[in-house]
């Protein structure tokens, strides 16, 4: 593998070009930089969506809407007791009234709220798995006799629009990665064609001396692969720096949802592989371009 990149001195002289002398490595560096950012955004959203979805899909809230605080309290306690007996429920937590008041305080203020507004009793449920609609229906049925006003609401319902939005962003990010790969391929094609034009006479001579298409294309492939790797590493370094800066700022926000927008080790592994993938893309594109052009001459 490494032998492929070791260009013998005479081959280097045959198709001469200095490192970072042309625009190619810089174009690739910019493409890889943008690809790294788009991939990181896509992966972070996948990660966040997975975390939030896993966390919320198996959760539900039971609201007991009863104006009489006494009846509401009794119904809530009975409902919690009943729920603990059901096999699909893993954890039941009856929220204390001060916690409920704290939840709505940002919107309604905290001045003797419970005296003015009949707040519902809330029971937070953690299910053993994501429940089906039929299982939610049977939950509702089980509670109807104990608390007729009980409403069972899956948490996934609240987060669905957010997940849908994040999924859209995720597709946009991965779409951008695809477009950048296409643009990188196009840049390589232009670069390979330009190099071919520059060295037309040398190529013709090598051909007439019995050089094969594979020998000639290998010269360009290696050169373009090295340019792509060099540019890719520059792009990766720049992109990783930006990701690190953003992740530092997100961490400083200390918000639950934002905290989950992070990259795990395999995401970093994918990002680190981008320059290698870029190099292979450039190599394959260069090979196809050069071989295609050589086939037009005898």
């Amino acid at each position, binding site marked *: 593998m490494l032998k492929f990149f070791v260009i*013998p001195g*005479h081959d280097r*002289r*045959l198709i*001469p070009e200095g490192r970072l002398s042309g625009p190619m490595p810089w174009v690739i560096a910019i493409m890889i930089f943008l690809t790294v950012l788009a991939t990181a955004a896509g992966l972070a959203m996948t990660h966040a969506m997975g975390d939030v979805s896993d966390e919320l899909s198996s959760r539900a809230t039971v609201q007991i809407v009863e104006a009489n605080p006494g009846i509401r309290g009794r119904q809530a306690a009975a409902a919690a007791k009943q729920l603990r007996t059901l096999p699909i429920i893993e954890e039941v937590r009856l929220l204390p009234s001060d916690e409920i008041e704290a939840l709505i305080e940002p919107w309604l203020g905290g001045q003797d709220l419970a005296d003015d507004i009949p707040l519902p009793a809330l029971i937070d449920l953690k299910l053993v798995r994501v429940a089906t609609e039929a299982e939610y229906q049977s939950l509702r049925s089980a509670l109807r006799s104990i608390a007729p006003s009980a409403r069972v609401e899956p948490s996934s319902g609240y987060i669905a629009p957010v997940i849908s939005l994040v999924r859209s962003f995720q597709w946009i990010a991965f779409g951008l990665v695809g477009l950048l790969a296409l643009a990188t391929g196009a840049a390589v094609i232009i670069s390979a064609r330009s190099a071919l034009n520059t060295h037309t*006479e*040398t190529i*013709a*001579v*090598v*051909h*007439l*001396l*019995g*050089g*094969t298409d594979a*020998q000639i294309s290998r010269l360009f492939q290696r050169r373009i692969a090295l340019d792509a790797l060099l540019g890719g590493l520059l792009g990766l370094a720049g992109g990783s720096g930006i990701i690190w800066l953003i992740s530092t700022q997100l961490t400083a926000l200390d918000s639950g949802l934002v905290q989950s927008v992070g990259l795990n080790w395999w995401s970093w592994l994918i990002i680190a592989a981008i320059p290698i993938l870029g190099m292979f893309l450039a190599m394959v594109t260069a090979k196809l371009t050069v071989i295609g052009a050589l*086939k037009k001459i*005898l």
Partner: protein
Amino acid sequence: MDEIVRFENVGLRYGAGTETLADLNFTLYPGSFYFLTGASGAGKTSLLKLLYLSQRPSRGVIRLFGEDAVTMPRERLPGFRRRIGVVFQDFRLVPHLSAFDNIALPLRVAGVREKDLETPVAEMLDWVGLGDRASARPATLSGGEQQRVAIARAVIGRPEILVADEPTGNVDPDMAIRLLQLFEALNTLGTTIVVATHDIHLLSKIPGAQMMRLEKGMLADPTGSLRHPPLPKDQQQ
């Protein structure tokens, strides 16, 4: 004697124009020496291009080393080209390579290892009198020196056929004779030589050579029978 090249009703047309070469019929034999003569524009270079597989004919059959070179798949051409040495009219040296690297090019293309090519290339440089110009680039060499590098590059791979297009065009008469002697020496080693020239004085320098004369793209003798060039006056009876 087995033939090495045979042309049968070969014609060559560039684009939609008239035929540059027409109705060529001739056979070349291994170990022979041929001159190809004719006025400028007669089609000598075009004929040589067909010989060294730079061009396919528009019609006819070319058999090279016993195989049909016209319908031969493109992938097989490099192997055949390695058996043919070419001295181009305009030398076609790679400008950014030294004389050494230019001469070594056919060996490198053929996959000869670096340690195995230093001696033959150095010997070849000495043979053409450029032993002290090994590292010189073509731009710093005179026309004659460039021509000698081109000749050395053509013969280093010990080709079975050597095709030379006006190889003495840029050298003084003495060097022209030396180059012809070089070709003759190669010829005695078994290489078939085809030299295109419009210098009729050269023809008498190789007594055993045969001659093909092109006139407006056609062989002067359309039957393809080649004739020996006239002997020098002092040898004529």
